[in-house]
């Protein structure tokens, strides 16, 4: 599903964030990536999403080498194959919840009926005409999850999705992300600092200067 081949990225000279990173994510696999601040977790997500370009190496999604595509083509690929969940929800305040969730469907010319079903799936049945200012943080993140999965993307990228939530709500949200990814048959990458959050994934990897390594391996080397 996702292949990272010898990815390197530096922001300023002498400040190498990623170096020769190689990894393959299989279809249906849901992994968590942990790591120290500044190690390049969010950079990695941006490179996968085609929002940033690696200095060297290749990112392949479903066999498409995205660094060779122009901006419009990458956008189309992102629109169709990816779903995003952000730490800061980013639910548009002037759209209803139903409309927010329907955005990816409209962008992909898909029927919008699924938006309502998705809203019910994330526990917000009957609230499609509400606006974001009427919701709590946990509810907003549920809307964001529904929006990320409504168009059945092949890969869901979640960047600290529970960073703004209390532990109980965070637990519910993480379970929801996992179950929705699994129901959809998507793959998923969860970037987090929380061990508890990471534990909800199939596998936990740690991003270090040596690349992505299973957490057991990191523990041993420590």
């Amino acid at each position, binding site marked *: 599903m996702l292949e990272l081949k010898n990815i390197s990225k530096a922001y300023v000279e002498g400040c190498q964030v990623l170096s020769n990173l190689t990894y393959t994510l299989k279809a249906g696999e849901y992994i968590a990536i942990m790591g120290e601040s500044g190690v390049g977790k*969010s950079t990695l997500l*941006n490179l996968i*999403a085609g*929002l*940033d370009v690696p200095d060297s190496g290749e990112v392949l999604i479903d066999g498409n080498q995205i660094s060779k595509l122009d*901006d*419009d083509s990458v*956008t*189309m690929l*992102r*629109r*169709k194959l*990816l*779903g*995003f969940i*952000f*730490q*800061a*929800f*980013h*639910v*548009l*305040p*002037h*759209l*209803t919840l139903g*409309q927010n969730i*329907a*955005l*990816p469907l*409209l*962008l*992909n*010319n898909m*029927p*919008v009926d699924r938006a309502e079903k998705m809203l019910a799936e994330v526990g917000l049945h009957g609230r499609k005409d509400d*606006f*974001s*200012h009427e919701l709590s943080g946990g509810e*907003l993140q549920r809307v964001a999850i529904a*929006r990320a999965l409504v168009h059945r993307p092949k890969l869901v990228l979640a960047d600290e999705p529970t960073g*703004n939530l209390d532990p109980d709500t965070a637990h519910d949200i993480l379970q929801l992300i996992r179950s929705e990814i699994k129901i959809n048959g998507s793959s998923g990458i969860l970037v987090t600092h929380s061990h508890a959050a990471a534990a909800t994934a199939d596998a936990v990897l740690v991003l270090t200067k040596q690349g992505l390594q299973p957490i057991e391996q990191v523990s041993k080397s420590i």
Partner: protein
Amino acid sequence: MKMASLSCWLLLSEWRARFVQVVVAIMAIALGVALGFSIYLINTAAFNEFSAASKSLSGQSDLQIYNKQGLFDELLYPKLAQYEGVSQANPVLEFTAVVPDRLESSSDHKLRILGIDMFRAATISPDLLGVPAEDSVLDGLSDDAIFLSPAAMEWLQVKQGDMLQLNVGLQTLSLRVTGGLTRARAGQRVAVMDIGAAQWHFHYLGLLSRIELKLDSGIHHGAFKAKLEQELGAQFFVTEAADQEARVANMSRAYRVNLNMLALVALFTGAFLVFSTQALSVIRRRNQFALLRVLGFKRQQLLQQIIVEGVVLGSVGSLTGIALGYGIAALAINFFGGDLGSGFFPGIQPNLHLSPGAAMVYFVVGVGVTLLGNIFPAREAVRAKPAAALKSGSQDSALNRLSTPWPAVICLCAGILMTQLPPVFELPVFGYLAIVFLLIGGIALMPRFATWFFSFWLDVVNRFISSGKLNVTALMVFARLANAPNQASIALGGVLASFSLMVAMAIMVLSFRVSVNNWLEHVLPADLYVRAADSGKQGGFQPSELKSLAELSEFSRIDFFRVQHLVLDPDRPEITVIARPIDKKDPGNTLPLTGETIGLDQLPEGKRPIWVSEAMVDLYGYTVGKQIMMPVGDAMHAFIVVGVWQDYGRQFGAVQMQLSDYQGLSADLSINTAALWLQEQTSMTDAHVALQQLPFGDVLEITQSQSIRDKSLEIFDRSFAITYLLEVVAVIIGLLGVAASFSAQMLARVNEFGMLRHIGVTRRQILRILAAEGSFLTTLGVMLGFVLGWGISLILIFIVNPQSFHWTMQLNMPWIWLIVLAGIMLVSASITALIAGRGAVSGGAIRAVREDW
């Protein structure tokens, strides 16, 4: 001190973050202040110079005696010279003479001449004494001597010793330029000659224009003036210097006030721009302010912070505006003169004087207006509850107070009520206030209108989207416009304010122009008009010359006009009295009558009719049916007002009467002007040749009516040039407002665009969304601006103009021009939105989503 530092940090960081918007707001304030200040400087300089020039002609006299009909018998002079309490009396004859070499200019071919007694004037008006050549000191008393001011010499292109040709009636006279004047104001065109010689050469024998009096010391001027007025009778009036100043002020007051009002409108648009800049800035910083409150910033401190921002913005803008205003005034006076081409202050060359007091007033007005635009956003920021403000998506609700319709409805009702109120001190104060209230009310209703309008379209879009016929762009556009109407309305307000003003001015100017054109057609029915220079108190044509004219076979009809000037009220400029043949069966065939009339057959036996201009009704209360007394010839006579006619040529009033009535009462058979209708087979060239072959043909002023019409419209367009300029500035400020509010919104929406980029919306799609938002907003702004502008134009046409200039006009809609304006507005606002949007989508998509909102 620490709070001051914090305040400074916050201010500078905000200005750094939105540099463009701040610069735009400063420019808007600066432009508004610059326009107001430059117009004030130009008007003041021109008015002061005009007033000083008028005063310099009456010298250091305490009182001046005038006759309401202009000229009077010089026998009054010895009586006044011996009057008790008078220390010195100075007789003056003042008139204008036609300069034949300058006849090509229809409006600028007359030289003002003062006939004075050199010995008497030496003490009262020493500046007017001529300065002859050193070797011929007594030249001033020579009967062919004339002294010219430097400006007059330059205009006439003559020097000491040259001969100067002047027309008197149907003859040409040669006078010798003997020298200059002791002192004349820059640009003042005036000639001085011995009073006896002037009376003789120009046929004013035994006549004077005024007598200037110097009173004994200790005499109470007011009491002396009242006593003298009583003794002289109703035909005379006595004035002091202050009265003259009031008269000069009255002449141009409406013009000056109207220009100042237009400048204030530009400043008002600037204030609106400050409001939109500050309101959007406060919305954008809502979370920051909430954070500051959480950290311990008091409400008062927050209010202070936003007010300080406004004061600094206003101060920088106002100071820039004052400097800019001075520069504009200097350039305008240099290139267009003190009256900006309108002809209100002829024959002067004003000097610009920077008055610190006036500069301070405009500075305070600029800062005050900025603070006015700052009040609502500041109050909103202070009222916001930190917990709610920290929550995302609360930005639009921050402006919920804007959607309350009641203040807007109250403003609109107040505006409508004010249209019904009378003028104050002959100025349309309530008319202008009505315009301001309508504008504020209209703009304040925008959030409501935006919600109704865009919600309707959102419903339509939702229906189409459900059936899969529309894409996401339409949803994004209409959802944003319908559900965030307050922010949309701020951008819309800029479009609305500037477009409504453009519409109002365009409708008013076209209505005025069409009315003037129709009026010219009505009042200039003949093919040719022929004038002769006055000959003393008489018109230029005497009966023998009239006979020669009437005998010309080239013309099918000739009407004769006798035009004179008359002072009815010493505080007001003189009115014009026109005696001419008026169709007795239907006076409407001769005059552009308006309103009710009295048929001549309904007049009581022996009563004489007059037709008055609209200004006479407003200024003197000469309503239809009223009997009035007016001096004609040497006595007062009774007339009945039988009709009111439109007159765009004389805003201070005019009266028309039958020529036969005038000649019967005054025994004056001379005339000034002849209107000639060509025979069918006669060409214009043949008519000219026939007139020029008359014995007095060389000195005739022959004008084709078409040429008068063209020149009148040219003067009209020149007079309105300044209003076009002010209009353009208001539009530029309005567009700057659109640019500022769009770019501020782009900053506030950068994370929205970031998220959209993440979920697969292309840059082009975002730009399309922004362009569509800009276009739809502008469309609504243009639609509502048209309605509001039409309402304002009605106030300008039916209230401001009649109350300022005492004339009415018919409404005419410049549809093509309005469509072009709407198109320009639509395209420029969409482009502005696009340019502002390009910055928001150019990078930052990754960074944007990291920030909370």
